[in-house]
């Protein structure tokens, strides 16, 4: 009973922290810095050294993204030795699975990776309605939009105008955090996608653009 009480208290405290994170934000009437797509419209290919850790299993390799037309991206993941692991296409809001090895061909896992990459490609950004917030220290311009049952928060650092964090939250509880850091001429050198409700972490380290 004592343990139950203690764990309930810890649970409440823990969720309070998550709730607190968003409740401290102040709504602002307009955006102070505009939100731009990470990959932009430059039709270049980007090459990342990539590690995907899913429930204790590590998959490392090279992830390459290529914009084929304004709203059409191809994303391919190969091992360092060149073996293709998956080949995705994102055209507007449609998703095509061109190829996938059995290790990744699990509907739930594929869906999560697909959604994570969609978040980074920001294909549907122009169609979204946003609300704007500021944090207590006024360090960020925060843009909030609906993403199905989730809320997406985009944190733009005011000092650099760089998008440094994206959070997916469900009923104000943080589900996924995308951390974008080490910017090199307006493109993040490191992207870390950390899921909080499943054991999945994706690290993208830019090699070439």
């Amino acid at each position: 009973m004592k343990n139950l009480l203690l764990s309930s208290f810890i649970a409440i405290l823990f969720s309070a922290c998550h709730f607190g994170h968003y409740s401290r934000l102040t709504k602002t009437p307009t955006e102070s810095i505009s939100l731009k797509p990470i990959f932009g419209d430059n039709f270049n290919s980007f090459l990342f050294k990539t590690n995907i850790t899913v429930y204790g299993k590590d998959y490392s390799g090279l992830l390459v993204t290529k914009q084929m037309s304004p709203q059409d991206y191809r994303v391919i993941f190969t091992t360092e030795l060149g073996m293709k692991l998956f080949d995705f296409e994102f055209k507007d809001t449609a998703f095509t699975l061109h190829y996938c090895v059995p290790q990744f061909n699990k509907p739930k896992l594929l869906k999560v990776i697909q959604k994570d990459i969609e978040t980074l490609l920001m294909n549907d950004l122009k169609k979204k309605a946003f609300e704007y917030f500021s944090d207590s220290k006024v360090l960020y311009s925060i843009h909030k939009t609906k993403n199905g049952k989730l809320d997406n928060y985009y944190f733009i650092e005011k000092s650099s105008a760089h998008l440094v964090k994206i959070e997916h939250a469900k009923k104000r509880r943080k589900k996924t955090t995308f951390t974008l850091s080490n910017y090199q001429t307006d493109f993040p050198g490191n992207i870390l996608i950390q899921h909080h409700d499943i054991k999945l972490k994706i690290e993208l380290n830019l090699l070439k653009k």
Partner: protein
Amino acid sequence: MLKSNSNRPIFDSAQTDDKSDRHTERSRSVSLFLTTVLVLMLTTFAFAQVPAGYKPVKDTTAFKQKMEAQSKLVSTLESDFTQEKYLSVMSEKIISKGHFHFKKVNMLRWEYNDPYKYLIAINKDKMYIKDNGKVSKYDINSNKMFKSINEMMVNTVQGNLLNNKDYKAKFYENDKFYLLELSPLQKGAKDFLKVIQLYINKVDYAVDKVKMIEPSDDYTSIDFTNRKTNQPIADEKFIIK
């Protein structure tokens, strides 16, 4: 209307005079001839598919014996390599560079240095992967995939794939190279690999280039340069900490 004595199909029934009949027969012969030529051509392409600039090796037994004899002379091997990944949808190839060390029996250190650091080492039944400064150690026999990676890498470096029963081998040559084409026979391997091409130089029978072609025709090619044979390599090179 059909002629009573005719075996001709119904779509020929409108042509009733002799001239027309002769014309039709001639057309048939011509088209039969053309079809035969076409089928022959297609068959030739489908079954031979000799790579451009190469001809089939006549005495494959002699070639295999020479390959084996040469491979027996190699105790250590090291070389730089350049790996190119071609993906049809991308405008440019992904190029990675590195260095490898090989020592008999079954010790291999395969290391990428540019544009990223990644190392795979095989030491008999152990496999090490060093990535992001973190070393992972695996027992090769514990995992079917590791076992096949090991066999593939060690055999590729040694040029030993020609005796592997999992592959069907074809042998070609030109002035400078023997070209060995290996097609996987097992279903699992066929899913991601159409053919492996080994370019073996005629001077010392060493593998100069390996090209692994996927069913989609995307490929990975590896070129070996600055090869050194039978230089001493310490066993420690194959233990990763």
